[in-house]
């Protein structure tokens, strides 16, 4: 069953030449009630996320939490090692020598936060995903070079092959292509 469905159509894809065209088209598409849409561009297009109705990413919160976690781990590590597990009098410093634990705490805060930023982004984006239906479109190779694409996916409730194609053609694209699944 599912196999059958997948093999038919992923959606329709319109090709544009400039980011502004894409932005305008995306806004129009969203306004027309389509929700399962996505834009593809070789560079980040400001406002495109808003235009296709993507809410603000929660990534900063993740990073903040991981940063705090890293800080706790860093200070906790220093404290546990130096005070609890391996207490040793070094240069007459108190076992709990706060200022000297700060550098490691700081570095681990950064490390945790930075790793969570990068990997959080990849995971949230579902990468790695080497295979994706959009790659089936012949001209899509230029999505990473100099062209801008807008796709409306077939499982959008409003999707209707002919109507949607007409709609996309109305947005003055360079080309509209069917995306095989």
């Amino acid at each position: 069953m599912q196999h059958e469905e997948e093999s038919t159509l992923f959606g329709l894809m319109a090709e544009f030449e400039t980011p502004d065209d894409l932005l305008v088209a995306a806004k129009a598409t969203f306004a027309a009630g389509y929700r399962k849409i996505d834009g593809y561009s070789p560079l980040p297009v400001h406002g495109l996320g808003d235009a296709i109705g993507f809410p603000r990413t929660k990534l900063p919160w993740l990073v903040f939490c991981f940063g705090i976690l890293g800080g706790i781990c860093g200070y906790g590590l220093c404290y546990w090692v130096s005070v609890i597990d391996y207490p040793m009098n070094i240069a007459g410093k108190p076992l709990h020598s706060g200022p000297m634990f700060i550098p490691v705490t700081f570095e681990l805060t950064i490390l945790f936060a930075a790793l969570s930023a990068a990997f959080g982004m990849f995971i949230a984006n579902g990468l790695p995903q080497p295979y994706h239906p959009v790659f089936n479109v012949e001209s899509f190779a230029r999505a990473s070079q100099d062209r801008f694409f807008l796709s409306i996916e077939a499982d959008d409730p409003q999707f209707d092959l002919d109507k949607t194609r007409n709609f996309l053609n109305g947005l003055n694209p360079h080309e509209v292509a069917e995306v095989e699944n």
Partner: protein
Amino acid sequence: MAQVFPRSANWASKASILAALLIVASILGVVLNINRIDYVSMVGVAIDQPVHFSHKHHVTGMGIDCRYCHTTVEVSAFAGVPPTETCMTCHSQIWTEAPILEPVRASFRDNKAIEWNRVHDLPDFVYFNHSIHVSQGIGCQSCHGQVDQMPLMMKAHTLNMEWCLDCHRDPAQFIRPRDQVFNMNYEYPANQETLGKSLVADYDVQTSQLTNCSICHR
């Protein structure tokens, strides 16, 4: 543009990342524990010896005290491996024909020491003193295990530094009355926690110094 990758690449890529993580984790696990496994630490492994001397037979069977052979254990750093003469004290009379004892007799005849292989071989940068442990109430058994039950000698503990420190940080866990040091069947009382503390105080064990580097590394 054609697809570069087949559809299966999607799960394969994720699975391979996961697998790589797992492999790294397991390698780390091995590295962390390599010194703790018996293969490396030789715990429970009987090293081949020129004579298959049985502590079990001599101690449990014959009732010979540790100090009968390891005569210097109470007074020096080194417990002492008995000279052939000690063996021959009895074995000049009994089991005189036993082939298993031929190396002993040969050693006695030729005045050549038997070359025992060390079982408890600490690194050379570790200074271990038997006498202080014995006189402060650390039983033989605490480090060497149930030697009286060992037909062939083997390590009972890793002798890794973490094992040493386990006691040095809190000797009250293992300390026993002095007259029980050579008792191979000593059982720690239920109130070892309190008893240990009082013994540590009685024997004037300076716990604060026991983890100084120079206590063992001199």
